[in-house]
Structures are given as C-alpha cells and as structure tokens.
C-alpha cells in the first residue's frame, strides 16, 4: 500500500495567557491509500487539534511548532498559505461534527457545492454540474436535493452534504472529526457505511477523530490512541480488543459497556492532566496501575512491538535492568 500521508514528530502548542498548552507532542504516523485510521481519545487528548493541524487549520493562539506533514510526498508544513488553500479540499479535506456550522443556512446546497468548485478554479459549467452530480451520488442523496436549503434536510442528510463538499474535489485524505456524535446510532451506522464505501470505491484515506473506541475498532483498519497530546499506541484494530498494549488502551477497553458479556465496566482512576503543565516522565503515570519508578522520571520512547507501536516503559527495553 502506498503511503499517502506521513506525519513526523508533529507538535502543536497553544500560546495562551495562562501558559503554553502542549496539545499535540511528537506525534508520528503513516496512512496508506484507502486506509482508515481512527484517532481515539477523550476530551482534551489533542485528537481534534491533530486533525486540524493536518490541514494547517489550528486556530490561534495555537500553532505547529515542529515536525513535518508529508502529503503525497510534499511537506505541507513548509508550503506558503496561498498554496495550502488550494491543497485544502483538493488533496486533504475535513468534515466536522456539526454540519450546520460548515453549511451556509441561506444558500442552496447546489450553490454551496458549486462555490467550492469555483474557488478551486473549475470554471466549465458542464464539468461543474457533472462533479456535483457525482458527489451527490457518492453520498447516496437524490440530485434534486441541490435545490434545498440546509434546514430542509435531516441531520444525517446534512452530514452527507458536508461529506459531499469534502470529497467533491476528489482528495486523497478525508479527516472526519466526530462526524456522527450529534446523530442517532442508526444514522451513525449509515454514515460510517458511507465513509467505508468512499475509501473502497474512490480510494480516499479516512482519518476518523472520535471519542468512541468501540466505533473506531468496528470500522477502522488501525487506531491511534491519544492521551494528553501524544499517541500512546498505534495498532491494527483487530489486535486491540483482544490484546491492548498500553495500560491506557487497556483501561479504555475495560470501560466499554458490553451487550452480552459481564455487566461491570471499569473506570480509569484520576483525571486527565492539565496540558500547560503535564506530568514528568510518562504523561499517564499518575493514573497507571502498572507505574514503576522510571515512569515518573523519564519519558518512554515510542517503540515497535510485533508490528505495533506503543509509548510505555513496559515495552521500552532501553530501560535498565
């Protein structure tokens, strides 16, 4: 599988009045063509910031402080903003939780899709019509809906329109940030089916940003679990439920309610840290039941274990003894 996106040691900080928030720190991963990766984490884990950073859309006072993002070989952290604007949408694109915030309530769906094409220099009327027709078909909506306004659509249909606007320029990567959190489960499941079709039929690589580990495991090829701004584990989904490596991933698996299995769920004691002042050593150590002396003093490396990656001293063999 050829690599579409490669992120190396990416760090994003927010420079707030009350200090520097280290929202994303030393994140690295690769994404293949047509691959589906999910970024899983709780609120404040940095997963959304990372999602925005991939499009260079981190809102101020945040900014990418180091690292590289290679999109189809080009390092997009180094390109001027004018070029980035043409890359957004055509090579990497994004869908947000609430489509009402990305759709203009006063304009017809078709006009909004057309505007995206206009901005990206598609001028030919027939070509525009063809692309809009194709986008609507790809998201399984009747073409007539182009004459509707957003309020005339249901939540699920609006999210389909948001996806249509995300894929109309045929990007390689689609970042979907909690696209179904505001939707009901049956609709959620259909939107997930749709994303799956897009990568199968169009070869679009998907990055799903979600708090829902069960959803991520059910749908994606691999998951990256984020905790306090770092990826603590990257594994194929099929391995995670049976054999989570990082103690935090283990904790998350234990906190998923079952439909048939044991009725109890486990909590992870304590609270996530303040990222202006993260714990020394491993950022998870204050909540970890496996914590050793070394965990509070030095930071574990991001090491490979059986083709998976994990940031934990239980696996990092560079520790003494």
């Amino acid at each position: 599988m050829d690599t579409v996106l490669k992120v190396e040691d990416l760090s994003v900080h927010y420079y707030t009045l009350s200090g520097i928030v280290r929202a994303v720190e030393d994140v690295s991963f690769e994404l293949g063509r047509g691959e589906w990766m999910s970024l899983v984490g709780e609120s404040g884990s940095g997963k959304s910031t990372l999602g925005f950073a991939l499009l260079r859309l981190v809102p101020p006072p945040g900014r990418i402080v180091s690292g590289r993002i290679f999109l189809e070989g080009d390092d997009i952290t180094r390109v001027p903003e004018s070029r980035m604007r043409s890359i957004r949408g055509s090579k990497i694109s994004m869908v947000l939780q609430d489509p009402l915030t990305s759709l203009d309530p006063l304009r017809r769906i078709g006009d909004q899709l057309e505007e995206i094409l206009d901005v990206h220099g598609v001028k030919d009327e027939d070509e525009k019509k063809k692309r809009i027709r194709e986008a609507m078909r790809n998201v399984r909506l009747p073409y007539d809906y182009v004459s509707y306004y957003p309020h005339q659509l249901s939540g699920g249909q609006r999210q389909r329109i948001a996806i249509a606007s995300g894929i109309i320029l045929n990007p390689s990567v689609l970042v979907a940030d909690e696209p179904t959190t505001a939707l009901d489960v049956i609709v959620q499941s259909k939107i997930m089916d749709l994303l799956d079709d897009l990568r199968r039929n169009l070869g679009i690589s998907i990055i799903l940003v979600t708090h829902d580990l069960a959803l991520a495991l059910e749908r994606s090829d691999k998951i990256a679990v984020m905790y306090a701004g770092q990826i603590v584990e990257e594994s194929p989904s099929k391995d995670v439920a049976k054999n989570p490596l990082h103690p935090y991933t283990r904790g998350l698996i234990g906190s998923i309610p079952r439909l048939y299995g044991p009725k109890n769920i486990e909590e992870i004691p304590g609270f996530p840290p303040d990222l202006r002042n993260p714990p020394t050593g491993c950022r998870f150590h204050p909540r970890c039941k496996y914590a050793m002396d070394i965990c509070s003093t030095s930071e574990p490396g991001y090491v490979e274990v059986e083709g998976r990656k994990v940031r934990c001293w239980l696996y990092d063999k560079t520790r003494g003894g």
Partner: protein
Amino acid sequence: MPLLEVVDLKKYFPVEGGVIDRLLGRVKGYVKAVDGVSFTVDRGETLALIGESGCGKTTTGKLVLRLLEPTSGKVIFDGVDITRLKGEDLRRLRRRMQMIFQDPFANLDPRMPVGDQIAEPLVEHGIMEWEEAREEAYKMLERVGLTPVEDFYDRLPLNLSGGQRQRVVIARAMALKPDFVVADEAVSMIDVSMRASIVKLLLRFKEEFNQAMIFITHDISVGRLVADRIAVMYLGKIVEIGGTEQVINNPAHPYTQALLAAVPTIEEKKLKMKLEIKGEVADPKNVPPGCRFHPRCPLATDICMKKEPEMIEVENGHFVACHHHI
C-alpha cells in the same frame, strides 16, 4: 404495588405559527411528544428508557416528575394520583423525586459554591438549618469522591471538570434521600474513562435508599449496565418493554433489533436477522398512521399502515407493539 404507575400518559405541544396566529390564539397543530405511554416502576427497580432524539424519553421523564403538565393520562406515585396535585402537597412530593440531567453545567448555579448548592435544597425543603445542611453537604461531597472536601466545597462549577460537576449534581439530588430518581443521559457527556465511576455512584445510592429509577439513555449498552427492565421508545410510544436481558437477547421489535445492530460494540452481535432500516425518524408533528415505525420498517405490510399495533406479551413480562414481531 409499584412505586410509580404511569397510565396512558400524553403530552402534546402546540405548534405555534406566526405572530398573527399567536394573537388570535390559533394553533397550527401539535407535536405529539408523548402519545400514550404506560409502565410501572417498583421500589428498588431501574427502568431504562431507550430511544433516539425526539422519541419522547426526556419528556416522559419530566412528566413523571410533574416538571411538565401532561395533556392527559395519569401518574400514580406511591398510591397517589399526582397529575392534579398542587401547592404544598406537590412540594412535599418533590422532595421524594429527583432528576439528574445530562448537562451538569446547566443544572448548577454558576455563582454559588458547589458545597452550598448541595446544602440549599435541604434548607429549602425545611429539612435542616443552614449550619447542619452545610455539614451534610460536606459528607455528601466526600461520598461522591470530591476529596479532600475542603478543596472542593467553595469552588464554583466553572472550576470543576465535567465529571466532577456531575458528581456535585448527584450529591445534591441524593442529599434529599429521594425514593425515586430520573437520570436523563446522566453519563452521556462524561468521558468514557470516568463513566464507570458515575454509574457506580448512582447504583450505590440506589441500593442504599432502595430507589426506583428511570434511566434515560440513547445507548442501549449503557442502559444494560443499570437497568432491570428496558423500555424502547419510538416517536412518543413504547414499542417494546421487558427484562433487560430479554430485550437485548431476544429483541422482538424490528426497531429494537435495528438499535442493537447499530450500537458500536467490541463483541460479536447475536442478532437473528439483519434488517435494513430506511430513512430517519419521522417528524413528530406528522406522525405516520397505523404503526408509526412503518415507513422505515423492512417488515411492514398493509396492516401496518392502517392499524396501530397493540402491546402483546411475547414471553413472560416481555411486551412488544408490532404486527410482525420477530
């Protein structure tokens, strides 16, 4: 005798048109948020109300507590019909019934120290004086795990995390030792790693006070954690009700089956068939005739468009309203 009995409860909200309609007192129609719901909850029992947004589960919760006036139907609490209760009688009852909402922030006074917010209802209901109530609040904070208490008592809600705020809300509700609690999506906004502790907290108080509880949630797997019985709602009606394991292992309504198929889990699903559900929930202003689920139902036939299905018992204590139950 059940602690709570709900009989054919209905709540229709008028749809208001423009200013002129309003001035002339014209009503354009009704949103049938709750449209004939009946169930019972015993002392010490938890009933989970499960359904998607707009199904009427929250409205049902509010009606049962008389936070909303029903259009018709009865709510019988501890043998007394409370639907027409007023004044002091209603106030005395309120002490015994508490609601915990989804968003703890909206539920707390932003300018009052959280400790005092726990003490206040005890004073308001005339149970104790402030001094004693503050001591009680102190104990409650300790019991919900907000320790050391002296660090938490004087904080404002803004200075707490979501999970901590929900603990304050629970402490405030439970300080009154209610017999009956409605918890509306009480853990939905809480991060998963802290969800378990909130669920356990609710269960511990439930045991201690032998409470009856209605646990409202959109997530059937969360409902299973706490509920003895599950009621599945669709467009203002209960479509299936039964023991938790009965409903999950042996879903009889196509809608319940679809909910189970759609909920993400890490387990192999044990479903008898795969049903393709069409579209999205209908507009509650225009409820479909016959069975209200029929436009989305893959099993629907002529009868479903004409006749509203009655509740029938498919196994002991397990009821479903469907002409073609599975």
